[in-house]
């Protein structure tokens, strides 16, 4: 018998205040006022005046590093960070050691996620064996494993070979899968360190041109159209990419696209200080690109925000820029960045946030139905996956205070708006009073 929660005065999707009753894993009642009389003994009442309730967030792009780099993140620490950031499901990228390119590895990740209990962990399967871009991995076996993989990606590397990409796009149709492409033309980005432009020319770091991303997106949307497949574009970062996706959607091509929180707010100007915390792939772009991805997200061209949470060891960031690893953490700052850049600026409503951070990613990952459905509306009878956010709170980010095992946040020292107060996974609190509930892992 799980705890019953009564959430008083929350604003579902930022709307009018209501009381919500969470019982036996589902949302049981939504009413203006729910009387405590008649509720089960032990019902926990949460006074949530002014807090915004959103469906539990779903991340389509997380690096949990396990197996292989448990020194930087484990499935336990990464999913705990996810819960702290308001997530109830994450897709764990395949570039682990060993690579998640077999049913065995994806099932291991899936089980470890289930045992940790913080969020639902959905492994992403590699497109090619060993991410080598040469031979298709056993996509079907992964799809039919206990992990029920639907998203396939060589993320970190681009599926560059057009024939391999075509075959993957075609093959995953058999189980309604999707190929999530890391769009990076490899020859145009050999040795690349940062966005190619005015700043790279001045600071002398080798450029990663926008065209290297855009050329692959252009090719892939045309391939998807040709074979009638579904394509997902990971972390698009340039104004040109937004234009291409807009064009493809206008043509009826079945493409979805994601943007990361950091590409919504940070620019390549940050490379001037040579601080590797700002080294990421795709690289931080220009202000014009930031403006374009914000606009694309607001008008629906970009379907989702995904974190690309990429924990790294200290020594891989405490060094020369060229020697440093690409990537930044993001699970615990994503919602705040979206609030700051999209909600507080009037570009989006909280309902839009629910769409781009929960509904759409769950639908793209095909985890929006079934027993463990995610990204569902906040309605009676739906699974009680939700997050309570205090939009009026302001916090100063401190990497050392975060739940993730790594400290490579680009927002260290930044003041960000909004704070996750509570997260519920199928009616069970994973975060309360802004802190992870310590009994989560042990409860299993």
């Amino acid at each position: 018998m799980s705890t019953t929660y009564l959430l008083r005065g929350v604003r579902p999707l930022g709307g009018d205040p209501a009381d919500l009753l969470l019982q036996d894993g589902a949302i049981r009642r939504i009413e203006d006022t729910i009387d405590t009389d008649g509720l089960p003994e032990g019902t926990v009442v949460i006074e949530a005046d002014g807090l915004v309730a959103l469906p539990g967030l779903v991340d389509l792009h997380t690096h949990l590093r396990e197996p292989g780099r448990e020194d930087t993140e484990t499935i336990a620490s990464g999913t705990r960070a996810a819960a702290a950031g308001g997530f109830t499901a994450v897709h764990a990228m395949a570039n682990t050691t060993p690579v998640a390119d077999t049913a065995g590895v994806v099932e291991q990740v899936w089980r470890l996620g289930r045992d940790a209990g913080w969020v639902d962990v959905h492994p992403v399967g590699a497109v090619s064996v060993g991410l080598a871009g040469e031979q298709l991995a056993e996509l079907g076996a992964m799809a039919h494993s206990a992990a029920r993989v639907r998203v396939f990606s060589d993320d970190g590397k681009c599926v560059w070979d057009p024939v391999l990409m075509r075959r993957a796009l075609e093959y995953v149709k058999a189980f309604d899968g999707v190929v999530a492409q890391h769009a990076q033309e490899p020859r145009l980005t050999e040795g690349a360190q940062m966005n190619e432009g005015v700043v790279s020319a001045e600071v002398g770091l080798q450029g990663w041109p926008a065209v290297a991303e855009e050329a692959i997106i252009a090719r892939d949307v045309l391939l998807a159209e040709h074979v009638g497949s579904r394509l997902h574009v990971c972390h698009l970062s340039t104004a040109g990419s937004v234009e291409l996706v807009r064009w493809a959607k206008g043509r009826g091509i079945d493409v979805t696209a994601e943007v990361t929180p950091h590409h919504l707010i940070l620019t390549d100007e940050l490379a001037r200080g040579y601080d590797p915390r700002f080294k990421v792939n795709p690289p931080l772009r220009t202000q014009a690109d930031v403006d374009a991805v914000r606009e694309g997200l607001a008008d629906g061209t970009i379907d989702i925000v995904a974190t690309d949470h990429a924990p790294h060891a200290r020594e891989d960031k405490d060094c020369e820029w060229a020697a440093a690893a690409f990537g930044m953490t993001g699970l615990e700052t994503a919602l705040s960045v979206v609030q700051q850049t999209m909600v507080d600026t009037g570009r989006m409503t909280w309902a839009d946030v629910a769409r781009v951070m929960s509904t759409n990613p769950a639908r793209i990952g095909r985890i929006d139905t079934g027993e463990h459905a995610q990204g569902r509306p906040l309605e009676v009878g739906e699974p009680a996956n939700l997050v309570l956010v205090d939009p009026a709170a302001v916090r100063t980010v401190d990497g050392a205070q975060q739940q993730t095992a790594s400290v490579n946040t680009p927002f260290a020292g930044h003041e960000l708006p909004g704070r996750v107060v509570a997260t519920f996974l199928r009616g069970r609190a994973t975060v309360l009073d802004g802190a992870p509930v310590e009994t989560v892992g042990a409860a299993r």
Partner: protein
Amino acid sequence: MKHLLSTADLSRADAVHVLDTAAEMAATQSREIKKLPTLRGRTVVNLFFEDSTRTRISFETAAKRLSADVINFSAKGSSVSKGESLKDTALTLQAMGADAVVCRHQASGAPHLLAHAGWLDAAVVNAGDGTHQHPTQALLDAFTLRRHLVGGAQGPTAGSGSDLAGLHVAVVGDVLHSRVARSNVSLLTTLGARVTLVAPPTLVPVGVEAWPCDVSYDFDGTLADGKPDAVMMLRVQRERMSGGGGFFPSPLEYSRAYGLDARRLATLPDHAIVMHPGPMNRGLEISADAADSPRAVIVEQVANGVAVRMAVLYLLLEGNR
């Protein structure tokens, strides 16, 4: 001035002050006793992650002429991916009590990191980082330009107090990979000179439009119309430049379009000088006629390098301790 990392950090007054100080340093170098007691008891570490015998010797000579103790720390094995980290190296130098660290590194920004990461208290001099900056090279180039082209006088202190207003300098060659070009563009323009970069389009960085200079793909046109007071030839790395996916079709085609040869030399104004940061590829970017002509000040650039580096070490290490 606590560090010298980029010429972009220097104001006109700063730059003129460095050049004037270098002029006085140069004047002492014609004496029988060249050594000055100025930095007695100070320790200068030459931290070279990349081979550059000429730059290291120049800094070493400068430091020794000022009586500093010099430690040469060749960390060539410590490439960015293996060996001791930059951080541990910096902590080691800190423990040894280095007063100044002269850093040459293949990674752009490494000296910036040394100066600002909090590992080290020493003054940091950038002796060339990746494709970013080589500020003492640009200062010695500016010093050489001033000595020859400003004030009409001769001798080490010619042009003292002046900038390079009104001069036109053509910088020719591999701008894309050149820290010398970047340092010179900002320094020479800060000092009032006009700079034209001349290179094939493949060797000009995307983003160059934000630089305070002109860009030309036409060397002959620049010589004919621009009448440059100085032509600075950049080193072109023959092996990595041509061939499959290279930056130009062949060394021969490069020399024909962008090499300084006897014919082009003859079109220069009478007073114009020829510069090269060295080491030269004779027959590629510069012909023997040009390199050995009386207009070439290439060997003098080397001598001026010592005076400029003495000035930089002096200005960084005296005071504020």
